[in-house]
């Protein structure tokens, strides 16, 4: 009885003062948040003072004095600053994320479609694949590929040989390096042909809508994109050379490959594990997307005379994509976040390089971890914003 009367008197109190009811909880929330942050900052300040650590981002400009084993695209060695090390880590993360996304998408789409195949064996195999790779933790899969599989590769001397062009050994996969002369010309020619194709396609589409005339779009685009860059080879002075990896003997038993591009086993294991794992989720999304298209659509398309191939291309896929793409973008985001598992094997991504080595050398835990978290947060938010924009764009507009 007493509790009921107090609660009702409290609610009466607030009912009579709507403004208070509106502002008080918010004020309390703000106060609570400020209190928590203030308490933490105060403690952090006190602790750091006691230890003689000073807070600040000044350390970013200091010399890092450690090397990183995989630094494509950036000139890096121990004399560069921690900020450069951060950049290298970030780029490495993006590299493995892109590779993972690429393979995961291809594999996921293939498996998703196979799952729906009328062929019983294929469908069953896809289902088994999905069930196996989805229910084992990603970290375990990563450890398996790295420690149990890639470690059993042979030494460079007995490397697996692919026609003497590329080699696979315990130290990594070595592929030839492209050496361009006048590479910019080649690149501009590709960009130019893409622009030309884009405008050409727009023109074709307009023509088709107005006159119903169809042009062999695919053939024409293909010709342009192959001929134009090819021309640069003939008359533009562009040439392509290859630098092949060669086995060099460093001692009686130590061999290593020199030249070419080396893809370290850590990167391979990480990309492999990420792709196989994320492909299962993408496969399920693809399956849900294609199954989500009502049968009526396929039947209606058949009734107006579209072939199965055309049905797939013009009717089913556009609608299926609408269902598939949002959760798949979510999976891309998960893949990027999961790439932080590189810290558990020796792949120098952002977490290992910055929140690992740099953290241990400088001891600036708060700054470094905050920067790392903010980096991932920015990536996530960027992808989320893109996804929201895409969703709005393809949303079916009710007439």
């Amino acid at each position, binding site marked *: 009885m007493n509790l009921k009367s107090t609660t009702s008197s409290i609610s009466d109190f607030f009912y009579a003062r709507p403004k208070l009811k509106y502002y008080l909880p918010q004020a309390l929330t703000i106060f609570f948040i400020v209190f928590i942050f203030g308490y933490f900052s105060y403690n952090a300040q006190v602790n750091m003072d006691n230890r003689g650590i000073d807070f600040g981002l000044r350390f970013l400009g200091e010399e890092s004095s450690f090397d990183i084993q995989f630094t494509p695209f950036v000139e890096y060695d121990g004399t560069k600053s921690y900020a450069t090390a951060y950049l290298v880590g970030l780029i490495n993360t993006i590299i493995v994320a892109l590779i993972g996304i690429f393979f995961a998408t291809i594999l996921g789409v293939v498996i998703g479609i196979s799952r729906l195949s009328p062929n019983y064996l294929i469908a069953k195999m896809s289902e088994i694949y999905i069930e196996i790779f989805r229910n084992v933790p990603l970290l375990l899969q990563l450890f398996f590929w790295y420690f149990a599989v890639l470690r059993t590769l042979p030494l460079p001397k007995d490397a697996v040989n692919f026609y003497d062009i590329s080699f696979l050994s315990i130290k990594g996969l070595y592929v030839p390096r492209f050496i361009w002369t006048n590479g910019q010309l080649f690149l501009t020619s590709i960009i130019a042909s893409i622009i030309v194709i884009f405008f050409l396609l727009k023109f074709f589409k307009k023509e088709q809508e107005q006159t119903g005339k169809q042009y062999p779009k695919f053939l024409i685009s293909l010709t342009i994109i192959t001929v134009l860059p090819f021309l640069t080879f003939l008359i533009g002075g562009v040439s392509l050379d290859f630098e092949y990896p060669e086995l060099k003997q460093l001692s009686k038993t130590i061999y290593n490959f020199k030249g070419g591009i080396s893809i370290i086993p850590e990167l391979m294991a990480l990309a492999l594990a990420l792709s196989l794992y994320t492909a299962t989720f993408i496969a399920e999304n693809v399956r849900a997307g294609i199954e989500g298209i009502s049968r009526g659509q396929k039947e209606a398309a058949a009734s107006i005379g579209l072939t199965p191939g055309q049905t797939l291309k013009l009717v089913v896929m556009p609608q299926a994509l609408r269902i598939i793409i949002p959760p798949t973008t979510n999976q891309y985001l998960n893949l990027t976040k999961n790439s932080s598992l590189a810290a558990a094997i020796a792949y120098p991504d952002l977490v290992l390089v910055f929140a690992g080595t740099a953290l241990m050398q400088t001891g600036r835990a*708060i700054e470094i971890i905050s920067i790392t978290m903010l980096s991932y947060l920015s990536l996530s938010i960027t992808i989320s914003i893109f996804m929201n924009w895409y969703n709005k764009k393809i949303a079916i507009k009710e007439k």
Partner: protein
Amino acid sequence: MMKKLTFLNPSRENLNLFILAGIVLFGLGILDTVLNSLFEINITSFLPRWLNYFTPLLFSFIGLHYIRIEFSGITKLDQLNKNINSNWFNAILSLLVIFILIKTIPGLLNWLFFDANFIGTTKEECTGDGACWLFIRFWITRFMYGLYPDAEIWRINAAFLMLIGTVITAFFVGPKIKKYIIIFLLFIFPFIAINLISGGNFGLVWVETGAWGGLSLTFIVSIFAMLFCFPVGMFLALGRRSSYPVVKYASIGFIEFWRGVPLITVLFMASVMFPMFLPDEVFMDKLVRVIIAITLFEAAYMAEVIRGGLQALPKGQYDASKSLGMGYWTMHLLIILPQALKITIPGLANTFIALFKDTPLILVVGLLELIGMIDMAKANPYWLGFAIEGYVFAGAVYWIFCFSMSRYSQNLERKYKTDR
């Protein structure tokens, strides 16, 4: 062109002849592969290398072509054709699958079971052809219980048995007792479990959290994180739908922050950064910090799942409750949340499965759960070189749990879909 060579085209007239020919050819191809992979006998070795490789494929393909008779009248054959053999593309795919299976499965089974060592106690008894399961048997207590002292393992067992027992009884009793069981599970059981496992009171030896490990630690972390992330997630979901802008944006900010960062950075934050935020005297055990971090992390995902459930409720429920004069909290506690939670149960199950799969990450901050213990075992100088057995074992354990849980959640989803 194939159609013109009528003798190559199967038809209903010479049904039995074609079927016989087809089966013989198909069988030949299979036989060749089987002999090759199981017994290393190569019956076509007189052919050049690549032809030798493809003969089984060729034979079986032609065999399947012969069997492909539409509407033959034999039900089994028609079923087979529809499923595996509907056209030549499917036939090739099926054959590839069958051959890959024939080539890999015997080897796999050999390694896993037939050549493996199950009996024995020392490393020397591992012959090396197959898996050395002795390694697992030797270390199994460590894998299950971590570095927990052997004499006190009964305490962990007691805690888990109590949990399982309570959950099972919850299935068999009526709804009234169920409520009490849930309250017991949510509020009283954690205290009992912590006292049992950690010790220090009631005459039990104190075991510090650094010694907890193995699969029991995985479960402890998952269950506690799940228990705590549920109310936090609920508050966040309600906060996100609140009409107070401050509360709403604070919830959105909190949720998006935790969803946007990887779990590893959250764990680093908990183990390295968080102690700086506490005053010097206060020392929070590493396991407690990690559980808090994982709880907050999963609460953000849980909040989204619950929000989905709240959104799925028809607005009529809200209107009806308000028309009955219910306040915000009464409405939510009595009407909205029970219904919303019922809808979200599959989502909750999925979140728990995801949480369970995320717990191995705690090994990067030094808490040795199952995979961490396997790493420790495989680095032991006496037992070097058994990484594969360890990881296969861990994979099997995790797979069994996750698969069962996901099947169960799929069943729930189906059940609740039809319910509404």
